[in-house]
């Protein structure tokens, strides 16, 4: 990447980080909702344990799941909401009339998602450890590929949301929140894939998050690394990210042809 490209990506990241300081809703997105989730699911886990319900590794199954799910959801949301930020600020024309390219813009918002989710992850892991003595880092090395796969899936979902908003306008902003949640029932976040009916199970197999959460339970309950799940998730993510990037590029060309960019607000 040339110095000019790096400088422009850096400029956008600088703006988004400035917003963390200026916009309370960004702080709420980064810390408040994730921490509320951790506290709530911590109590649910306590309830399960106190009632003596037999659920091996309950603490890890619920708290690990909620932390990793938040990671995926926040990355996805950061990509799409960062794009929406420009639509709401009516600065899309200002941004794209500059030397910035679509690739640089996308790279900046994807990297920003990683920066922000790292902050969320540290805060959630800290609260889970302080309140419930759950150490996310007990997942050990497995945490790295699990996290990486959820970030990749978050990028893909965020890019798809961005393409939808680019094509149909800001009134479709709701997809930024609803599309990632659509994947939740098929991601086996809080229950094993085996409880799903056959059709749902077939869909789940095509969702990389399903393999990640199955893999997480294998580490926490069976103390083994489910490499097969990891490779499938990685392969699916590679395919989905390529498709999502192609979709954004195609939609951007459509937007240029139909004159949609200046009307995005």
């Amino acid at each position, binding site marked *: 990447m040339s110095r*000019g490209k790096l*400088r*422009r990506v*850096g*400029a*956008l990241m*600088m*703006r988004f980080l*400035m*917003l963390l300081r*200026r*916009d309370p809703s960004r702080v709420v997105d980064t810390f408040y909702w994730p921490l509320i989730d951790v506290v709530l699911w911590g109590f649910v886990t306590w309830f399960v344990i106190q009632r003596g319900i037999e659920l091996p590794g309950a603490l890890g199954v619920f708290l690990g799941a909620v932390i990793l799910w938040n990671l995926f959801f926040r990355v996805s949301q950061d990509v799409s909401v960062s794009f929406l*930020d420009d639509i709401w*600020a*009516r*600065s899309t*024309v*200002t941004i*794209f*009339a*500059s*030397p*910035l*390219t679509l690739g640089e813009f996308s790279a900046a918002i994807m990297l920003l998602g990683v920066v922000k989710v790292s902050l969320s992850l540290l805060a959630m892991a800290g609260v889970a450890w302080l309140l419930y003595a759950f150490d996310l880092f007990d997942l050990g090395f497995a945490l790295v590929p699990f996290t990486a796969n959820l970030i990749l899936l978050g990028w893909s979902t965020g890019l798809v949301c961005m393409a939808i908003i680019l094509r149909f306008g800001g009134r479709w902003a709701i997809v930024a929140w609803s599309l990632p949640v659509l994947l939740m029932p098929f991601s086996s976040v809080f229950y094993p894939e085996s409880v799903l009916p056959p059709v749902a199970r077939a869909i789940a197999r095509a969702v990389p998050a399903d393999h990640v959460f199955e893999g997480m339970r294998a580490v926490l309950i069976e103390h083994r690394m489910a490499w097969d799940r990891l490779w499938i998730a990685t392969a699916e993510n590679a395919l989905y990210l390529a498709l999502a990037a192609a979709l954004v590029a195609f939609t951007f*060309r459509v937007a*240029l*042809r*139909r*004159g949609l*960019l*200046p009307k995005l607000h």
Partner: protein
Amino acid sequence: MAVEAVAPVIVRDLVKRFPRALALRGISFEVRRGEVLGLLGPNGAGKTTTLHVLLGLIQPTAGSVRLFGRDPQRRGDAALSRTAFASPEALMDWRLTVAENLRVYARLHGAPRGAVERVLEQLEIAGEARSKFGDLSLGQQTRAGLARALLADPELLILDEPTSSLDPDIADKTRSLLLEIRRARGLSILYTSHNMSEVEQVCDRVLFLRQGCIVAEGTPLDVSHSVLGLDSADLEQVFLRISREPLR
């Protein structure tokens, strides 16, 4: 021909067809180095569409557009790095201060060190540097937008109604500033405005658009002479004549 020798803007047979409208019907024009060209015409004539095509925000249906010899659609970053755009419609982030916004755009455009402070002084908005962009009046936002456009010492300035929301005093100062920069650095300016006396004061040449076609072109005096037979520039009357004349 060397790239440096070409006119900053060359438009040839530009056509833009949207799904429900034909916005530009094969227009051709140039903006020469150091020239201020006024792009005039009634609402819906195709002025803003032309500017957006030049900025690479809209893809032409046919014809060609070159900024400094490059296609802004294909080599956007090279062409657009020498170009700046300001319009009351092209805003910055309302949650950041004026200075924060300008720092972001200074980096985006590769502006030299100290550019933010310089443009704040030039546009007389240093007092608003710490105000949030969203808290500014429309006129102050317009000046902040002009400040943003001047950050990286552009060679071509594309301005869409740059003084429409400014009071007469600030509008006059802004025009003087633009003309001063033009004199000092040979800046080329493509300018749209509905203020005809301003256009007469600022523009070397004007180009009247109506329904996507160029209907008159030349110096304000030439156009006034050819359209109305006048011996002095009166673009207001030219505008009214062109807007009201039945289309052939």
